[in-house]
């Protein structure tokens, strides 16, 4: 069970860093990113240069209440399982939690980073392990990139449909940059990193350990903490993202690590399963292999996981070997030592039973099942896998919602160029009504509107003319009447679809993994409604990691936004 690659002091510091990152991430949550000019939002346009105003905003929005609101609070169940996994002495926990909650957390980061450097075990064996781990992560990144480029070539055909996805990509990356810039601004991180020369392998090891700890859960937590969701919490992911930024480690490397952790955990878990019921499960195994993916949870009634057919080998190292299609050159290059390092670092994940829940029945859950129409009026609601990242152990899910479609393929095509390391699904919903309203808008735009614009000599962009339409004479407005009814229906359906999406997320069909939601037009409204519903139905903060809304037909009523924002972390 031991985590051998870091000394106990380093693990202590690593736990502290995660706690600090978690706290800072929660502070970031209340700040708007890429949305600084929200009209009517008189409560939280943060003064970016000042950390103190950030603090007061926060306390204002999150009620005075109690420190229960803090993500670092024990009742949240976010930190303690990680501490336990890292084998930090339980006596040190309150100190860490309190440190994270205290106001000048940023100063502590420096100290904890320093102790990482100073407390050097000095053993060359450990260094080798760290080095091997870092190397294998690098190769994972490389193989991810090659996998991407091959995907890109196949999808070039759809170039014309890419605009929206390009927009969202640029939006996402802009958010990322802005967030990182803000961290930089918050403190002179550059200077901080300059005098702390943490070796790259060490950084990777730290992050890898923390990731393993976040993904793994100790079974005893479930009984005590009802608030704790199983698996990889969105809040953990965002904290790790922040921590990676502090450590100057590229996020793609984190994503590579996620996959490695997932696979080693899966392999280890499978080994466990096999030894537990060697005979009775034989028949099931065959099924699992044949089916490729299935919701194992449903089959066995426990927190098992869905595994790809290629992953049948029991040993951890073999589990990595099975990654071959993705990993390509990895095996021969890093060799056994690399695997061993990964295995030792992640090995103890296996010790915890529930790790499986993280990546659970995902594939099958989302794409396989057409949703039962639990909420009336919704005629169509279906998850469609997009891109090639499915069942490859990705620890994060992206759900993409279109809202302006002319044909069914428009639900998927806009997202084809959206390349990142998420396991992506598009939602196809209410195509009949969406196509109707989209077509109506198109017709309207191409007829009356454009003619009028030509005559007026105002060749503005379509977008700005839509705005201008508000001030137009009544004669022209009548032309919009026939859009109205279709629009109303579509709005109604999008609200219902949003609630449906929220229920799906609540049921954990995505497999207890952090979810990124992207949507445009009416799709953005679906997401907004989904977030609202999540916020209203209790403590669901750990589900949704990031959200991007493009052109959402939602009133800018700040109250509603505040409710919705409670449930996720980075917002646009």
């Amino acid at each position, binding site marked *: 069970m031991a985590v051998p690659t870091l000394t106990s*002091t380093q693990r*202590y*510091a690593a736990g*502290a860093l995660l706690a600090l990152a978690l706290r800072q991430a929660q*502070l970031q949550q209340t700040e708007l990113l890429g949305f600084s000019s929200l009209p009517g939002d008189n409560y939280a346009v943060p003064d970016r*240069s*000042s*950390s*103190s105003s*950030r*603090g*007061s905003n*926060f*306390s204002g929005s*999150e009620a*005075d*209440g*109690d*420190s229960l*609101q*803090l993500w670092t609070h024990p009742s949240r169940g976010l930190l303690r399982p990680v501490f336990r996994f890292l084998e*930090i*002495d339980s*006596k*040190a926990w*309150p*100190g*860490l939690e*309190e*440190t994270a*909650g*205290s*106001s*000048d957390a*940023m*100063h*502590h980061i*420096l*100290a*904890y980073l*320093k*102790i990482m450097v*100073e*407390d050097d075990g000095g053993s060359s064996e450990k260094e080798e392990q760290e080095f091997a781990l870092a190397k294998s992560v690098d190769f994972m990144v490389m193989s991810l990139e090659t996998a991407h480029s091959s995907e890109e070539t196949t999808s070039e055909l759809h170039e014309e449909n890419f605009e929206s996805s390009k927009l969202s990509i640029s939006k996402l990356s802009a958010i990322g940059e802005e967030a990182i810039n803000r961290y930089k*601004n*918050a*403190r*002179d991180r550059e200077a901080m990193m300059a005098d702390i020369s943490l070796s790259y392998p060490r950084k990777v090891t730290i992050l890898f350990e923390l990731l393993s700890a976040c993904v793994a859960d100790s079974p005893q937590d479930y009984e005590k903490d009802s608030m704790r969701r199983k698996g990889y919490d969105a809040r953990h992911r965002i904290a790790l993202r922040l921590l990676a930024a502090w450590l100057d480690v590229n996020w793609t490397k984190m994503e590579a690590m996620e996959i490695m952790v997932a696979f080693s955990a899966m392999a280890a878990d499978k080994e466990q399963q096999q030894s537990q019921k060697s005979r009775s499960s034989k028949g099931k195994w065959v099924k699992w292999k044949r089916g490729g993916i299935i919701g194992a949870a449903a089959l066995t009634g426990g927190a098992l996981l869905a595994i790809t057919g290629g992953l049948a080998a029991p040993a951890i190292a073999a589990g990595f070997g099975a990654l071959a299609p993705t990993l390509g050159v990895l095996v021969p290059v890093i060799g056994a030592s690399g695997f061993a390092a990964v295995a030792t670092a992640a090995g103890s994940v296996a010790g915890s039973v529930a790790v499986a829940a993280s990546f659970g029945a995902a594939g099958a859950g989302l794409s396989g099942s057409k949703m039962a129409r639990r909420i009336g009026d919704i005629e169509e609601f279906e998850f469609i896998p997009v891109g090639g990242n499915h069942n490859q152990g990705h620890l994060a899910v992206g759900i993409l919602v279109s809202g302006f479609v002319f044909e069914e393929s428009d639900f998927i095509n806009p997202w084809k160029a959206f390349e990142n390391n998420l396991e992506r699904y598009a939602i196809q919903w209410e195509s009949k009504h969406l196509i109707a309203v989209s077509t109506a808008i198109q017709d309207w735009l191409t007829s009356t509107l454009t003619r009028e614009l030509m005559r007026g000599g105002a060749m503005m962009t379509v977008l700005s003319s839509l705005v201008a339409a508000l001030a137009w004479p009544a004669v022209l407005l009548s032309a919009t009447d026939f859009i109205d009814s279709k629009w109303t229906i579509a709005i109604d359906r999008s609200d219902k679809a949003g609630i449906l999406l929220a229920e799906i997320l609540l049921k954990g069909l995505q497999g207890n993994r952090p979810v990124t939601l992207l949507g445009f037009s009416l799709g953005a409204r679906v997401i907004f409604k989904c977030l609202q519903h999540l916020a209203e139905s209790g403590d669901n903060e750990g589900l949704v990691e990031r959200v991007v809304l493009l052109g959402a037909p939602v009133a800018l009523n700040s109250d509603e936004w505040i409710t919705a924002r409670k449930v996720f972390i980075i917002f646009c």
Partner: protein
Amino acid sequence: MDPSASSQPEFDYLFKLLMIGDSGVGKSSLLLRFTSDAFEDLSPTIGVDFKVKMVAMGGKKLKLAIWDTAGQERFRTLTSSYYRGAQGIIMVYDVTRRDTFINLSNVWAKEIDLYSTNQDCIKMLVGNKVDKESERTVSKKEGIDFAREYGCLFLECSAKTRVNVQQCFEELVLKILETPSLLAEGSAGVKNIFRQKPPPADASTGSCC
């Protein structure tokens, strides 16, 4: 003085106190005695420990946030970040171990000068383990002289026998209450549970880029 009062959220002032000193001098034991009136064998502190105690003093309700730091050398860098914003610092030594007393001037007093952000911060020198009178190697006189030289309060106590433990904290807190600049820091704005507002004296807020 009722420990159960610690759950009560309302208080007039919040003071941050810090305990420093060599490993094994009894910082954690002192704190345990003060907060829960107990005494037991403790293993060395890892990093930092934190305890809260509500007290009523001078007609005010006070919340004391007491940080108990690890004395071990390997945590030295870590503890340095906890000096920031502390209104009171308790330096502890073991009256039976002369080296722990020597180290106060060699190490700990320098640490305070280096890391404390608070000019007016109240310092207190505490000689622990006076129950082991026969093994004493640091006389009370030496303690008083040291305290005079560094301008701090002084007491000798024993966490084991409870002698003077309450007085240690009380004297320190009373002194803080007499210092207007510290009082201002501990009141009002800091009251909010998220404690997000850095103390006004925090220079780093202004130096942000």
